[in-house]
């Protein structure tokens, strides 16, 4: 995901050049020294493990991992956070997130998270799930966890396809969209329409905060980050489930270049899955949070 990385990786020139320390071996070099003349305004979050990820180039999973870890860093909750990794392309999430994590069987992340959270109600618990995981095989666990108002964060990565198993139709595959198991395009008369999970679960009293975001441009990335930050913060209130749906992409199985997928998100995905907050906490609920600050 090239475009927003560029904007985020802005580096500001230090104006006070005289005081900049230049390492010995660079003093004679013709290249201007960049190490110390710039102030770091962006870097890898400390809780994101410094290894190369297995994701395909341009895949949103890696970016969203980073945003989650940025939020955990900024809130300083590494010690109190337990993540639940799904079966899906993000199955190795625990290789990248420097926090305690539990793998879950396909679709069962919300049940696993319930087991953890019910016994450690003061910890921060989140699940990270794909659309196959959450919206097909794991609907019952997801719906009931939200209905119980489990104080967890569910990060729902909707890329409209089964990424890991190489591109089969998902419950969120768009009408007419071609996948390996809908080679002629999703036939809605046979398979029905893609499920809008956020809209489906928002009316449940157990759902506290429901939002749909994407990460295909810099502004969207910032908004997603903010949504994740808020969702983590709200967990403290013990008022119910926070659900952050993120429209992702899958260059490999959409059979597009990464840049083409960004356009497809704009042109097709968010037309059917409109972005924005679907359920916001009420002002009075947030009062405690502000007082807490």
């Amino acid at each position, binding site marked *: 995901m090239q475009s927003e990385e560029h904007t985020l990786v802005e580096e500001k020139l230090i104006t006070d050049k005289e005081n900049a320390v230049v390492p010995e071996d660079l003093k004679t070099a013709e290249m201007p020294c960049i190490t110390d003349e710039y102030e770091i305004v962006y870097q890898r979050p400390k809780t994101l493990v410094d290894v190369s990820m297995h994701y395909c180039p341009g895949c949103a999973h890696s970016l969203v991992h980073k945003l989650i870890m940025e939020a955990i860093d900024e809130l300083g909750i*590494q*010690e*109190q*956070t*337990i993540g*639940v*990794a799904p079966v899906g392309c993000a*199955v*190795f999430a*625990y290789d990248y*997130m*420097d*926090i*305690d*994590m*539990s*793998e*879950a*069987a396909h679709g*069962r992340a919300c*049940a*696993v*998270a*319930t*087991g*953890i959270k*019910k*016994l*450690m109600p003061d*910890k921060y618990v989140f699940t990270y799930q794909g659309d196959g995981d959450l919206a097909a095989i794991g609907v*019952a*666990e997801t*719906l*009931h966890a939200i209905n119980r108002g489990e104080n967890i964060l569910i990060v729902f990565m909707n890329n409209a396809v089964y990424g890991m198993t190489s591109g089969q139709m998902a419950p969120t595959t768009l009408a007419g969209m071609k996948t390996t198991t809908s080679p002629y395009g999703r036939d809605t008369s046979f398979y029905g329409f893609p499920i809008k999970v956020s809209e489906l679960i928002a009316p449940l009293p157990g759902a506290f905060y429901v939002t749909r975001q994407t990460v295909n441009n810099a502004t969207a990335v910032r908004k997603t980050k903010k949504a994740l930050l808020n969702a983590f913060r709200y967990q403290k209130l013990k008022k119910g489930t926070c659900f952050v749906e993120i429209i992702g992409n899958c260059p490999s199985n959409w059979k597009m270049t990464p840049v083409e997928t960004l356009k497809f998100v704009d042109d097709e995905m968010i037309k059917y899955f409109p972005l924005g907050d679907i359920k916001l906490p009420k002002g009075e609920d947030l009062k405690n949070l502000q007082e807490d600050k």
Partner: protein
Amino acid sequence: MKGNEAMAEAAIQAGCDAYFGYPITPQSEVLEYLAREMPARGRVVLQAESEVASINMIYGAAGAGFRVMTSSSSPGISLMQEGISYIAGAELPCLIANVNRAGPGLGTIQPGQGDYFQATKGGGHGDYKLIVLAPSSVQEMADFVFLGFELADKYRNPAMILSDGAIGQMMEKVTFGKFKPTKFDKPWATTGKPPTRERNFITSLHIKPEMLEKNNLRLVEKYKKMRETEVRYEEIETDDAEYILVAYGLCARICHKTVNLAREKGIKVGLVRPITLYPFPEKILSELANKTRLMLTVEMNAGQMVEDVKLSVNGKVPVEYYGRMGGMIPNPEEILNKLENLIKTSHAI
């Protein structure tokens, strides 16, 4: 007290932190009892949306280092199998009780022992074993909860109580001794990563074949150790026995009567009652095979444990099976009848 209630009370006394379950006859009393008794003690009890959910809640909570339990009956235990396989793969301690009813399918709510293979051979996918305990009285329903929790923690392995609808429902006197749960260190638990240690993760995923094989071999070693140290069984009148009955759970109680009836008639019959169905008491059966003429397993299924007895005695004596199914319970006389017939025909050979 009912067998199911004894199990529930024992769970509380054994320091069970949480119970997750879904109603099914003939074991719903466990969930009902705990729903009444656990919250006041600050423990967690949750009626899940399905057995699939409850076993995965168990996985999450056990992974976080808590002492946890679920129970169900046959169809529900079938639904849990994927989760149990994950729990065994991730090496998490927990206690699962199966109050066996008769199958297949929806079957009936009457007692059965048709889940023997499922319980003792793994049950779900992949190579793994559960520690399987078979109570034959209400007292043992309670005792084996303590034992099951301890063994599960000792081996970081799921333990199962394989009971049946009769023992779950029957009422008997139970005494609860002073049980002190052992404190087990769980440095691997997902409790939140402090700066002082590496992150913990609970998983059964080893994508590289060399790694998975290594892990599986480690599990095999663990199961071997269980076979060496945890075998439990009861022998009744085997000293001078010429014929051995082998039965567990409810059938063992009935066979005890058969032993008495046979002895009254002058037939020297003994009984071996496996208490751990896994690890199976192979050694004692093999030893008894050296000095007896015939073994007869009595089961409420189509003949499952009989295979393990045959493997144990390795052809040294004939091993026969007698059983009832569909929720029918054999009576002591019909078992004796079967034995007498077998003795007659085996002498004829």
